[in-house]
């Protein structure tokens, strides 16, 4: 792997008042790959995602995008780079239809008037590029969609803007078996289309189903970032719970905590 990763974080520190949430965290995400970000509750996954998305500025560390160091201070900066984050609560308007939700805040206009036809075409093209077949009409309201379909709309919204990195925060947490499979298929397709995908998940089955690499956080530190094919299910669970697994992970956690 000699090519530069799309996103590379090095030595990220983040503290909220007296609480240091992230210590010296590193994470890389490559185009065309799904990088799973795993860790127990409170390991710092959400904070790290918010740092990537520009919601929380980092206290220290390097944020490299396409090999160049960049400053991300706001969600707008992140969006300008091509970073889109799909949060767990999706943030869709139930009373609007699929097209309106996908373009919300960035509507296409012809003069004063909304250009509905163009937006519908673009939305249809995006969904088609993701091979989404589950949505019958683009003009149906989001309130009439199932959980999996909503997730699909939220992901399609993130992809619509020629984004390069899509971060998904537990996209399958609230879904049934069939819908989970569908969303995972969609996640895989995003990577196959050449995007870098960071997938946060608690579910090892999901992680091994789609991820190329796995980054494990343990108490705010990077335990390990490994290829999914190089580790077993049990090793990843150990990395999550203990921060180490044999040769992998934080070798001396007591020394690490003191440092």
């Amino acid at each position, binding site marked *: 792997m000699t090519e530069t990763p799309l996103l590379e974080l090095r030595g990220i520190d983040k503290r909220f008042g007296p609480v240091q949430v992230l210590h010296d965290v590193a994470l890389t995400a490559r185009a065309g790959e799904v990088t799973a970000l795993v860790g127990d509750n409170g390991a710092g996954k959400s904070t790290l995602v918010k740092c990537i998305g520009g919601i929380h500025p980092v206290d220290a560390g390097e944020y490299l995008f396409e090999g160049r160091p960049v400053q991300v201070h706001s*969600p*707008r900066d992140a969006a300008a780079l091509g970073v889109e984050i799909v*949060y767990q*609560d999706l*943030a*869709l*308007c*139930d*009373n*609007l*239809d699929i097209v*309106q*939700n996908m373009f*919300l*805040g*960035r*509507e296409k*206009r012809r003069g*004063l*008037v*909304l250009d509905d*036809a163009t937006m*519908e*075409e673009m939305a*249809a093209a995006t*969904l*088609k590029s993701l091979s*989404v*077949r*589950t*949505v*019958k*009409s*683009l*003009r*149906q*309201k989001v*309130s*009439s*969609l*199932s959980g*999996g*379909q909503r997730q699909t709309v939220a992901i399609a919204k993130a992809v619509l803007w020629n984004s390069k990195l899509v971060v998904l925060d537990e996209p399958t947490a609230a879904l*049934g*078996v*069939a*819908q989970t499979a*569908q969303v995972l298929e969609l996640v895989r397709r995003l990577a196959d289309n050449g995007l870098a995908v960071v997938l946060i998940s608690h579910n090892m089955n999901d992680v091994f189903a789609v991820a190329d690499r796995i980054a494990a956080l343990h108490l705010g530190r990077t335990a390990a970032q490994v290829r999914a094919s190089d580790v077993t299910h049990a090793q990843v669970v150990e990395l999550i719970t203990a921060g180490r697994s044999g040769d992998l992970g934080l070798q001396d956690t007591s020394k690490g905590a003191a440092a």
Partner: protein
Amino acid sequence: MTALASEQPEQPGKTEQPGKNGTSERTGEPEKTARPTGPGLAELGRGYLDRIRAGELGSLPAVAGLVVLCVFFSLLRPVFLSNLNFANLLTQSAGSIAIAMGLVFVLLLGEIDLSAGYASGVCAAVLAILLTNHGWPWYGAVAAALLTGAVIGLLLGTLVAKVGIPSFVVTLAAFLGFQGVVLMLLKEGTNVSIKDPTVLAIANNNLSPVLGWLLLAGCAVGYAALQVRRSRDRSRRGLAGTPPVLLAVRIGAVVVLGAVAVDLLNQERSRNVLVSSLKGVPLVVPVIGALLLLGTFTLQRTNFGLHVYAVGGSPEAARRAGINVAFIRIAAFVICSCLAAVGGVIAASRGNSVDPNTGGSNVLLLAVGSAVIGGTSLFGGRGRVVDAVLGGLVVAVIQNGMGLMGYSSGVKYAVTGSVLLVAAGVDAMSRRRTAQR
């Protein structure tokens, strides 16, 4: 107006039953999204029925109520159907419809403006004082009244959006405050009469019969052209559009209903033609019509309107999408108070004067009732400007019909209150139904 109401079946969305998602999603036919073809009439009808079953009633209860009430009253009191009464109905309801149109914007955000009635009173008082006491020309006075409305809206909106006081409390305080302002402006309750012929014309004059027909023809042609152009554009791009049959029915309905109304209004309705002739479309009808078009355009076709719906549906989602939520809130209050000012001008014109009761007593509740009865949700995110017109007509028919039947004001208020309660109940239940999925 009724044609705008029938925009409902336009979106050919077939609501999916949640239960069968698991299977249908896996085996979904790829053709559906890949090449959207125009849905058949049957499919459109089924989609509409599905939406109604899902609790999205839209304007259906208001239209049905209007038809039932009209049949009921005309059977019991044939005079209800007379030309004179029809024209009266329209002029009676105009002021409260204008206020209700403004309230739709605020209700869409899930907020309320309890002070809209007295805000219209303040604006009417400003109008009357400038016209009568200071001798301003009508355009200056009307502009000042509208400006007063805008300032009131800016104040209320800022208190709600920036300071963060619940709109219920802000406007309840303003309700009392504006009542006081009206009293102060009118020097403790004197009655200021209005003599300016232009202002009086708004609610009291009629278009000449020829002008009425011309106006209808213009509206019909414009409406048809817009609908056909939009449908052509969509089908050229291969997007699912409205089938031509439905389009023709919709345009036909506008023309027929409009023609019947204009014909009725153009007939002589003076009791004694020798004393004075009274015929033609009341001037308030095109005034309300223009406001309806402007409001509908703003809400349905501009991104401002879309953002109003978005903030009403989910303020958090709107904020994350980069929408300036505070600006949308303030703007909605400004629009509401400006339309209240229009309502005040119409009320002043109709009453030939302004007194401390202008915009008081039941004006606000009838206006809120109009919007809700028309199908605008009190929970925000759902509603259209045409709801205010339909609901306003329902309220006016109840008031007018019961008056003709000789019921006292007490009974009329009680019945109107019950109808509002029923409408709010329907709103709450349909919301529960949509939330259940």
